[in-house]
């Protein structure tokens, strides 16, 4: 690994933050304390962490229905996230967006998105603005394997290449779209095969290996920042829980074996083992990190639970900017 220990710790921390946030959200959902849909990112932590670890605060990302991981990886605040998931007025979206629209524009996180594929054209817009301003910012579009079948993704990828924009397309290929395996919905195995059709380079990385993801991201981001145009990163990964919610609901669209095999490659534990083996870290250090972040989560849950619900007069607020241009 050419990645410094400090960066390794940083990536590790991002992943653990995601894991803890998601598992807490899962528990709360099971306890019927979270309204609405919940799409957990557990298992895929290395992708968001490895890529967002290569970004600056003022770089932009667009996200998906499975968006908490991206926001956490970009530096999202647990308190405001948890409050949003509970529909509280202290949440990131004042309770108006919820899990599927969670966002933090100050961190360049342009929103989870309930429409599959819809984030990519918006990322193209952010990349355009970044090129236009010329301050070296880049944009990353996160999306799933299934999302590459939708027109919006295609148009975004082509336009980004035609306009030579500073953008990275980050595909989280977890082999399923909801409950349907990838091979029923496309005749190719690797999403990266689509890159050539737009005229951009594409690379496959092990999405369970945060260092590998990070290295690929560093390269693609550097290229974009330097005016080299778009690239595609396909990270092969897996979600450990169901499409939404926590349990598999006894639904046998994935075999127990398959799930178990992927879980053996847990991106966090794999990194920890490697760092210990390489004498970069000790078990005790990790224990401390987990404990510290567990505490942050407990604080966030309490913050969210204690926060007030939005009041009825808020329904009609925020539809339009008060200060139109006139």
């Amino acid at each position: 690994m050419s990645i410094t220990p400090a960066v390794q710790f940083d990536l590790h921390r991002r992943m653990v933050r995601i894991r803890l946030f998601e598992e807490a959200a899962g528990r709360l959902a099971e306890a019927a304390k979270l309204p609405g849909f919940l799409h957990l990112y557990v298992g895929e932590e290395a992708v968001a962490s490895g890529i967002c670890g290569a970004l600056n605060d003022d770089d932009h990302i667009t996200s998906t229905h499975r968006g908490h991981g991206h926001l956490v990886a970009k530096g999202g605040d647990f308190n405001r996230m948890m409050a949003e998931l509970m529909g509280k007025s202290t949440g990131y979206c004042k309770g108006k967006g919820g899990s599927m629209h969670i966002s933090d524009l100050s961190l360049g996180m342009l929103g989870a998105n309930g429409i599959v594929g819809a984030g990519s054209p918006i990322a193209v817009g952010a990349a355009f603005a970044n090129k236009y301003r010329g301050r070296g910012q880049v944009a990353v579009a996160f999306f799933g394997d299934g999302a590459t079948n939708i027109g919006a993704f295609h148009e975004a990828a082509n336009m980004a290449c035609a306009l030579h924009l500073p953008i990275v397309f980050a595909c989280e290929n977890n082999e399923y779209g909801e409950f349907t395996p990838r091979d029923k919905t496309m005749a190719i195995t690797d999403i990266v095969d689509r890159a050539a059709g737009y005229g951009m380079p594409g690379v496959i990385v092990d999405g369970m290996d945060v260092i590998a993801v990070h290295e690929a991201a560093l390269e693609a981001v550097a290229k974009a920042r330097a005016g080299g145009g778009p690239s595609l990163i396909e990270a092969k990964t897996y979600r450990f829980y169901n499409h939404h919610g926590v349990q598999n609901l006894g639904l046998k669209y994935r075999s127990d074996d398959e799930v178990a095999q992927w879980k053996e490659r847990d991106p966090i534990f794999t990194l920890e083992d490697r760092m210990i083996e390489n004498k970069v870290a000790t078990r005790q250090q990790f224990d401390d990190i987990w404990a510290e972040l567990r505490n942050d989560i407990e604080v966030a849950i309490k913050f969210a639970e204690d926060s007030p619900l939005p009041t009825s007069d808020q329904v009609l607020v925020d539809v339009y900017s008060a200060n139109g241009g006139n």
Partner: protein
Amino acid sequence: MSDERKLPYVMAFNEAVSQALEDDPNVFCAGEDIGAFGGVFGTFGGLQAKFGVERVVDTPISEQAIIGLGVGAAVTGLRPIVDLMFMDFMCVAMDQIVNQAAKLKYMFGGEARIPLTITTAGGGGLSAAAQHSQSLEALLCHIPGLKVVHPATPYDMKGLMAACIREDNPTVMIKHKRLLGIQGPVPEERYIVPLGVANVVRSGNDVTIVAWGRMVHEVTAAAEKLAGEGIQCEVIDPRTLQPLDIDTIVASAKKTNRVVVVHEAVRFGGLGAEVAAQIQEHAFDYLDAPVGRIAAPFSPVPFSPALEQHYIPDAARIEAGIRSVLFRTPVGA
């Protein structure tokens, strides 16, 4: 009767599709997760096992191609049922719905038959936020060439779905997500609820309430409450939103002289506006009060249940709205 067979709304849908698949080899279904998984709402549950992968087809996440699959198969002789998981996603496929499915027959000078049924799930109340809760029927009803149904009961669900499938024009069947589990009597045998015929859910002389989808149930609750005070509401569920059975509505308006339209969609530009406009056109001299409209306020659907409960009309707001039309105090949004 107690031995009447009851089914949930979702299974009434399923049975209509299943019987159509049995009856007509040209019928097939396609959509996301509808095959092996049976649809995220269970609407297509068990059908692939029964009818095979050729007839109950899992598709990629490609709403434009899903509708196009239906249009192309319909115009070449099949009778497709294609599914858009959530009504909000029709925006992704709007061109195929509005510019292709709806217009092909006309553009081709009549030389086409498009026996296509598009099924989808609309409505809020599940904290599913702004992109998974909309009621966008007004957008569809404004487009010549489409027929649009939105059943409120399991009985109507089965009969209207059967009618849509047999129809030679493109239809959109809107299921309401919050009604999927409601039980009601559903005959096992095949039957049709004809398109374009309203249902008078409840008779009354004091005020006419026009409502569809889940709102029918909220209106009924309000009507029952008012009945306790001696106020008799006539509740009309058009069931088919396009073509709209305006005659039944106008006849009722002429009888009661007061009308309230209730829908879950945003009030401005909602279908309630058309209903109100037509009532005042056709029953102007009979009206003792302006036609009232109870609907969602002018905002996207909020996520938090604390907000959404104030967004979607409920029995209490409907009751208040009815009173204001009866006593001519201002009607809320």
